[in-house]
């Protein structure tokens, strides 16, 4: 079973990615309008007559509007196989190049906020479970429930309005100070952090509550387990009980969620980076949807698909490593 099981599982990852890619490709083509229409509309707005605008657009845009969809599909798919994601119609640069330059920034913002919200949520949730029923617990429950129900983009807009526009403490956009040369200098890192704080904060603030509530529930359950009663009777100090008994057992069920969140968080970057004018993957994806930039849109979606599929695959495969009780593979018959 085991070897075949892993091969099957890896195969499923590829099938998933392939199917989602195909599906996205078709859907994108059926969106109303196209790159051509967008450019024409832009030019008409600038006062050009429609016929002229259409002519200019067709000279500048490297698209072939008359190509039937199945031919375009085969072209595109065979391009992917050799690592060619096409040329962005709007930026007129290779899609791969844009993604490579943008992806690290998104990964930076998302990982930092995921780690922060997870760590903070776990600590708070465990603490709440320990003081279950106390005033601290009730207040924290209300606060976390409220923060969880606030959408991250609303938080982003609020933070931007208060801290950037009103107080002027933080920049309103950008990845780092454009006057500064990018490099491995402390000043550069400080600038990156300074620009990244608000996007990270808006994700962290709205996400940690969910982790905290999940952790609280799990911890309360673990606190009621027989082995905790045995540990207490055996005189094991509270510190060891928290670190070695409650926390590992309560985190286990959250692990899969965490891995899945890594994948989905890319989707969240689309709007966030738009709000903060932060040129990461999400920013370009938003722009490409607006301009009907088919190749760039496809490239962005493929990256997200791969991230989700791989995260879930890793979660599946590694769960047995962190939970000694779990065995990867098909469920075993008991007897």
């Amino acid at each position, binding site marked *: *079973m*085991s*070897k075949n*099981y*892993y091969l099957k599982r890896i195969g499923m990852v590829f099938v998933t990615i392939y199917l989602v890619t195909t599906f996205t490709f078709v859907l994108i083509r059926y969106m109303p309008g196209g790159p051509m229409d967008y450019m024409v509309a832009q030019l008409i707005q600038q006062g050009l007559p429609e016929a002229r605008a259409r002519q200019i657009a067709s000279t500048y845009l490297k698209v072939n509007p008359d190509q039937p969809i199945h031919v375009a599909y085969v072209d595109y798919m065979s391009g992917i196989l050799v690592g060619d994601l096409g040329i962005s119609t709007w930026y007129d640069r290779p899609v791969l190049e844009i993604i490579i330059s943008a992806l690290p920034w998104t990964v930076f913002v998302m990982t930092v906020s995921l780690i922060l919200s997870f760590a903070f949520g776990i600590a708070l949730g465990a603490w709440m479970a320990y003081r279950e029923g106390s005033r601290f617990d009730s207040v924290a429950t209300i606060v976390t429930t409220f923060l969880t129900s606030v959408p991250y983009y609303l938080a982003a807009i609020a933070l931007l309005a208060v801290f950037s526009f009103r107080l002027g403490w933080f920049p309103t956009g950008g990845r780092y100070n454009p006057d500064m040369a990018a490099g491995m200098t402390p000043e550069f890192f400080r600038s990156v952090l300074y620009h990244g704080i608000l996007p990270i904060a808006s994700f962290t603030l709205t996400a940690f509550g969910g982790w905290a509530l999940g952790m609280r529930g799990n911890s309360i359950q673990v606190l009621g*387990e*027989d*082995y905790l*009663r*045995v*540990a207490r*009777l*055996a*005189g*094991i*100090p509270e510190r*060891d009980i928290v670190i*070695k*008994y409650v926390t*590992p*057992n309560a985190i*286990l069920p959250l692990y899969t969620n965490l891995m899945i969140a890594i994948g989905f968080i890319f989707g969240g970057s689309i709007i966030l980076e738009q709000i903060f004018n932060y040129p990461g993957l999400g920013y370009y994806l938003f722009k490409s949807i607006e301009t009907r930039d088919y190749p760039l849109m496809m490239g962005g979606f493929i990256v997200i698909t791969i991230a989700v599929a791989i995260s879930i695959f890793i979660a599946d*495969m*590694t769960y*047995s*490593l962190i*939970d*000694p*009780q*779990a*065995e*990867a*593979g*098909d469920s*075993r*018959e008991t*007897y």
Partner: protein
Amino acid sequence: MKIVSERSASVEDPVLELYDTSVTFSMDRGTSRVLNDVTFDIQREEILGVVGESGSGKSMFASALLDAVVDPGVAQGRIIYRTDAGEQVDMLDLSREELRRLRWEEISMVFQGAQSSFNPTMKIREHFELVLESHDTPKGQGMEHAHELISDLYMDPERVLDSYPHELSGGMKQRALIALSLVLEPNVLVMDEPTAALDLLMQRSILGLLENLQEKYNLTVIFITHDLPLVAGLADRLAVMYAFEFIEIGTAEEVLNQPAHPYTRALLQAVPNLDAPLSEMSPIEGSAPDPVNIPSGCTYHPRCPLATEECRSEEPHFHDTTESHKTACFHWEQSAEALPFADANEYSEQTAIQGSQSEDPVVSLEGTEVHFEDGGGILNIFNEPETVYAVDGVDLDIYENDVVALVGESGCGKTTLGKTAIGVQRSTGGGVSYRGQDIWDARDKNGDVDIPFADIRRALQIIHQDPGSSLNPNRKVQTILASPLKRWHKDMGGDERLHRIHALLDLVGMSPPQDYAQRYPHQLSGGEKQRVALIRALLMNPDLILADEAVSALDVSLRVEMMDLMLELQNLFNTSYLFISHDLANARYLAGNAGGRIGVMYLGQIVEIGPVEEILQNPQHPYTKVLMWATADLEADEGDEEMPIRGIDIPDAKNPPSGCRFHTRCPEAREICTEREPGQFETENEHETACFLVCDDDHPYWESDPIVDETETGEP
């Protein structure tokens, strides 16, 4: 009884003295007294058995001894612990830190539910190390002691310490927990139902080991259980609890042989065992009192046949029947006469009951095999998966109106065999057929199918061990019972359906049925849930019901009642039971009353099968004898009984021993057993045994050399 300080201890050298100890819980509907003014002494280095039904307050007694009553319960009174140095400590008057030190170092405890007493994310070794560390005990010395304890419990220390809890079997986990509780060398060990989840053989083996430990380490053991026969052979003294207080205390021999309290007598009568005639076992009428509303006077008076006006109004004090035996009953002198016991010695030959089995089998298994593959995690990706031989070549015919009881240890494959017989587990070899139609051919529509799979499915039903989790908690009893009728009697009207459900509920003693039909499963007791599960299975009008440990989760006194009901319904519905149990006494009761058979399973094979009384009175296979030894009889300790088995743990089903699978534990094993697998040899009366012992004198077995070292036998 109220004069606390001037009471002199009732035993010579008390280690623990309880004075008017109570445990109370405040609840919405009043204060619940789950331990009611208990005054009691425990002798140093004795084994005290505390016996009571569930809900009698025995667990609270255990917790109170360590001042470990769970919130919001409160323990009151005085519990004096005398240290070796003669110092007196009041357990209920200690600071947190003093209590933390005293527990485990002086008084230790093993819990109910040892299966979940270890942290699943930590290895066993870490558990030991943490406990040693927490009590500032040097690790090297402490771990050495841990090694010794684990070997005393017949396990390999290195292997156990390097395992995660889930990698150990239930019995091994239990023994590891005992070792953990003794690692700081306490004086007193309190055990609360420590073996309840294990099969009988393991329970008996652990009890044997416990006796050795008690002697070796001079322990005082307080063993709390609902299972009177289990502790009968172990305890020096027995104390019976009823309604949150002790009602009878005495030496084990006196309590078992001359019980004076009517409740103790009823309890002894209600226990299924191998000795008493089938007709003499009877359940206790009525139910245990509610802790919020304890009856006035003698708490047992509502159920007691001897109750008089005095019992209703006045609380009985302890009367000494002998120097070492006392009971809290006004009528203790009359009880023996008024409630006589069936004398186990009086009858010798049990007449077998004639069953009404059919000629042709309903279900037959031929050379059935079920093998599983066991893969392992991502780290074992390149290892070949191992095969688990859960069922390995079983022939069995089950007739109409038949009862076949399968007995064996946990892990011997009896549940898998049962599931295979009713077609919910696919066999990997051999055949399973229902009235001549192969079940899996019908399922796969292979060849000519005489009986469609849907009919087979309906005809073969199951009731599970845990009735609580087999009923949907969000459905009323009525809805639960209506679904099989809706499925199989589509033309039946709603009123008729309801009528039928009510009639059945009434039949199984759940009246008024209109009331019970409207309840949710959590509003039913364990016995009632199991009855609903039984009715649900019967509404399908099945030919065979697999009853997988169907009575094991019930209180001892309810088991006989449930089995009586199963027998009554068998007559009514013409159904057969495949009854799975680790308890020979239950198997005997159910199968014996229907003229059925007992099949003994070991590592995936049936090693002995035959009519009930034939098997019990004339067991041939050494393993059957072991199981009979494990089924405790109601007798006090008769000195050092020899364990008729070598090795406590059942071998791994992934790698069964060669030849006869039992040879690694068999006291009669000879060289030939390691090489040749014995077939089924029929003796008389349809009695079949897979052992060379039943063969004639000219069989090579008798020439072969014994593999058992004589000095080794008798050791567990």
